């Protein structure tokens, strides 16, 4: 198919003085073309499956107006994550010590390093009874949608069964604003 008949170059008389014309092969090596073809196929297959968006499910708790209807969390099992502006993350365990905030109010980041929020969650998970562990996520006014999704994603990555998205309180908001100034941006 890819070869052309080159044998029909006759007709010339091969006299003694006539130089023999060099016969060039017209066969083309198609191997690189096949390679390229399959490379493009793999590329297209990968890009089509990758662009399929996924959906992350979130179940919201029903609003409880009366304080006695609200779910209670044990102090030992509570772990609160606060989200600030410019990807700042802060967390504390149990109840926030408002008098001496530095006692349990800590700063973290979205990385997976030792000071990342993932390790903080894992540490808490390791030394808490699984039934008691409740993670409270309090996004501040300045944090982005990405931060919220990232932290919810952290819950599924670390297989946290109970977590809640709660409004930030004024005290916490002030503390976050104060700490943002001193904490390194990331």
């Amino acid at each position: 198919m890819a070869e052309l008949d080159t044998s029909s170059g006759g007709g010339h008389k091969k006299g003694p003085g006539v130089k023999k014309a060099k016969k060039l092969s017209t066969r083309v090596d198609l191997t690189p073309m096949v390679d390229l073809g399959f490379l493009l196929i793999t590329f297209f297959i990968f890009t089509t499956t990758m662009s399929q968006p996924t959906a992350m499910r979130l179940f919201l708790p029903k609003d409880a107006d009366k304080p006695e209807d609200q779910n209670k969390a044990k102090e030992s099992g509570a772990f609160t994550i606060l989200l600030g502006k410019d990807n700042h993350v802060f967390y504390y365990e149990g109840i926030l010590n408002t008098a001496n905030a530095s006692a349990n109010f800590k700063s973290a980041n979205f990385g997976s390093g030792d000071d990342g929020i993932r390790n903080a969650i894992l540490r808490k998970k390791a030394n808490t009874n699984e039934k008691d562990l409740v993670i409270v996520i309090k996004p501040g006014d300045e944090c982005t949608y990405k931060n919220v999704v990232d932290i919810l994603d952290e819950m599924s990555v670390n297989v946290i069964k109970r977590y809640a998205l709660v409004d930030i309180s004024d005290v916490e908001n002030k503390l976050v604003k104060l700490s943002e100034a001193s904490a390194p941006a990331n």
Partner: protein
Amino acid sequence: MARPKIPRKSTNIDMTAMCDVAFLLLSFFILTTKFKPAEAITVTTPNSVAAKAAPDKDIVLVTLDKNGKVFLSLDDEQKKEYIANTLNTTKNLGLNVAAFKKAAFIGGSFSQLKSFLEIPEESRKGDALPGIPTDSTKGSNEMIEWMRLVNDAYQGKKMNLLLKGDNLAKYPAFKSVIDAFKKNDFLKFQMVTNPESVPIGSELWKNNQKGEKRDD
């Protein structure tokens, strides 16, 4: 003794057939790829490890762009017709029902809705539109009303409530959307994200290795 001559066979394989197949497949894949339609509202969604594909039927999509503007879109024309008629009777907006049915998304307050529908479809761009007002500090959260209309239109029939937010959208805008969901007892919704691989060594990764089913 004369040995029989073994005919020397050429090791050259004719690649033409293979080349044909490769390019046939290539053209097939190129032609079957659905191109992403140019979106009127540009949204860059965040990544998540969620593995479930986003539904594409019976969707009620709330879009949150990077400036915190909220847009609503439904894919069922019958429901849209119902909503337009309800709005016309209850609020006397005088909407063009056919235009409402065709509109890909809604991006304005109730009072601006009539003029919004008069803008030609091509020039409705998310950046130029005000979006549905949600900030309850500057008036009413109209999303609550919209979600009630959606609730009435679907009347408990199956629908997928999707939220597609931009990375840079601020939390208060997200919160007012969630509030609107909660007020209408839509306690289950899905957030559109881009897939991301599960970090190696994490708990979820270990569970996946064990073959445990995920409930995300």
